[in-house]
């Protein structure tokens, strides 16, 4: 038996790979399907950033809550939201997790602790302080994590929330997924500090920056921070430096990127390839194990797309329901 050098069991490694592969295939497939014109509205793809959501969410259960972003599909999948319901939602179908009323930017499943993707940048930070406050009052050991990009890191809501979480010692983690771009604007242009961890210090929070394409780096840093928050040690900031394989939204020509940037990232900074190489080189997982997962995930995504395409649209009565609990 080969000695396992990783902080996860073989089963957990396979689970992590499956989650990342599911996110990747989900997004790659949406890229193709969106171009066909069948998907309404705006779609923001998470491909390239899979190790961030997965490395963090491996430490969470349903009592833990997350607030996501407009680029939320990866967070949803890693938090356990059903892939078929997500796909149905993105197609605007009655079978979607929000019955077709939310769409890509508002996927939520409160039963899984997923408090919603969010079309407003930085809006999740105050909300997750509330989740942390509720967990603290209940004393259930739950934690809250808010995800935001390098762009939304400049929103006042995020900064106010870091202070609030710090003074109330809330079990809340601020996760900056720094993919280098706020829409088309570079992080170097829009942010004066070199690292968001410098800002954490300004709010009295511990912070750590990791390579967000390295699943293990994310997993280990997140594990420590989450454990600390769960035990009453208070909030922290985690910056994951990552890459965005696609544009801000589908249809973005990405002319602001350097020539060859996407190709370089796919060749050298692909978290799935990096993960696969490490676990197979260590002899813990065989190429065939990963290939089997690849086939199973491909079949799952195929089925999710076909099911969503064939699913019924919401009926006209749905227009005016669900505005209030009672009115």
């Amino acid at each position, binding site marked *: 038996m080969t000695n396992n050098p990783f902080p996860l069991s073989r089963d957990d490694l396979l689970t992590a790979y499956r989650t990342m592969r599911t996110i990747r295939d989900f997004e790659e497939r949406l890229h193709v399907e969106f171009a066909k014109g069948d998907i309404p509205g705006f779609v923001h793809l998470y491909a390239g950033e899979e190790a961030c959501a997965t490395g963090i969410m491996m430490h969470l259960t349903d009592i833990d809550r997350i607030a996501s972003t407009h680029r939320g599909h990866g967070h949803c999948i890693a938090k356990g939201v059903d892939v078929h319901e997500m796909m149905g939602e993105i197609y605007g179908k009655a079978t979607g997790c929000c019955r077709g009323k939310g769409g890509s930017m*508002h996927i939520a499943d409160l039963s899984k602790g997923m408090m919603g993707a969010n079309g407003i940048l930085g809006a999740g930070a105050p909300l997750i302080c*509330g989740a942390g*406050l509720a967990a603290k009052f209940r004393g259930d050991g739950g934690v809250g994590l808010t995800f935001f990009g390098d762009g939304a890191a400049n929103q006042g809501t995020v900064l106010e929330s870091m202070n609030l979480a710090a003074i109330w010692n809330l079990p809340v983690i601020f996760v900056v997924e720094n993919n280098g771009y706020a829409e088309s604007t570079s992080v170097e242009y829009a942010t004066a500090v070199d690292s968001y961890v410098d800002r954490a210090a300004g709010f009295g929070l511990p912070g750590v920056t990791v390579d967000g394409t390295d699943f293990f780096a994310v997993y280990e840093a997140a594990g420590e921070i989450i454990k600390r928050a769960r035990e009453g040690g208070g909030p922290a900031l985690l910056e994951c430096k990552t890459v965005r394989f696609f544009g801000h939204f589908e249809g973005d020509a990405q002319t602001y990127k350097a020539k060859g940037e996407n190709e370089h990232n796919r060749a050298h900074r692909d978290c799935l390839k990096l993960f696969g190489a490490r676990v197979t080189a260590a002899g813990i997982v065989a190429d065939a194990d990963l290939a089997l997962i690849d086939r199973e995930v491909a079949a799952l995504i195929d089925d999710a797309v076909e099911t969503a395409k064939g699913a019924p649209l919401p009926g006209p009565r749905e227009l005016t329901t669900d505005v209030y609990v009672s009115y």
Partner: protein
Amino acid sequence: MARMISYKQAINEALDLEMRRDPTVILLGEDIVGGAGAPGEMDAWGGVLGVTKGLHAKHGNRLMDTPLSESAYIGAAIGAAACGMRPVAELMFLDFMGVCFDQIFNQAAKFKYMFGGKAKTPVVIRAMVGAGFRAAAQHSQMLTPLFTHIPGLKVVCPSNAYDAKGLLIQAIRDDDPVIFCEHKALYGSEADVPEESYAIPFGEANIVRDGKDVTLVGYGLTVPRALAAADTLARSGISAEVIDLRTLSPIDWDTVIESVENTGRLVVIDEANPRCSLATDVAAYVAQHAFGALKAAPQMVTAPHTPVPFSPALEDLYIPSAEAIVAAVHKTTGPVKSAA
């Protein structure tokens, strides 16, 4: 025997009773306790005007003073509501909505709909509204129409101490987000308020005075103003019915329409600015649904299309007065002294 307490005491009592009844009720806001972390006494203020004074002694850390970060703590109240708590957040002055509106109208108001009916957000946001305190343009507005416009929010504005208690208890028990508007000029007004707990259902207007010649519709401070106008009108033989809307969303159209069908005349009084206001809303609804009953064009008495001025000489002109209401009624009855 009458138990006269103030509008302010009635609100305090409603908060106390609901905190006793339900352990998930928590209070958040700037200085709602007062003196947090300072060397002097705790509960130094109980809110800037003392509305929550004394609650900290009874409920301890379920009242939380917040930093001056409205987006963060209003948002935290909303997030906690989505996670099973029933927070009552105090925004102090409704004018401060400008620094936290996203959390209210894009988050709290939309969760239920956007998430396909699966969320509920039982948060109450209390805030002072209205002019009359010489507090100028950024601490005196009646911004009720902005909130009434937003689907998913409920909007409440009591005109007296009895309603303040019953409507706030309902607001806390309600499963939807509620904007609870407290008119600062009414804090000292007293009414006979029962000691026990009671809830006033939303969407039920109150006919505070019966009449047969004209219907006066208002909410908040405009209700006592309309009652004063009704006294004046009675002396010239005009019988005015006065309707207190109590809640602006939901709104009790039936009571308004039924009254106008009886009186044939409508004057709506709104302390908000005139465009896209409750005044225009009620006038339009009545014109559409009771046109045949109208003997004259509906009239509106509102603040002017200006910010709230500071100088007492100007602010007193800004707020709809009983005299302006009487004049508007005379426009509906014509130059002839009395209604038919």
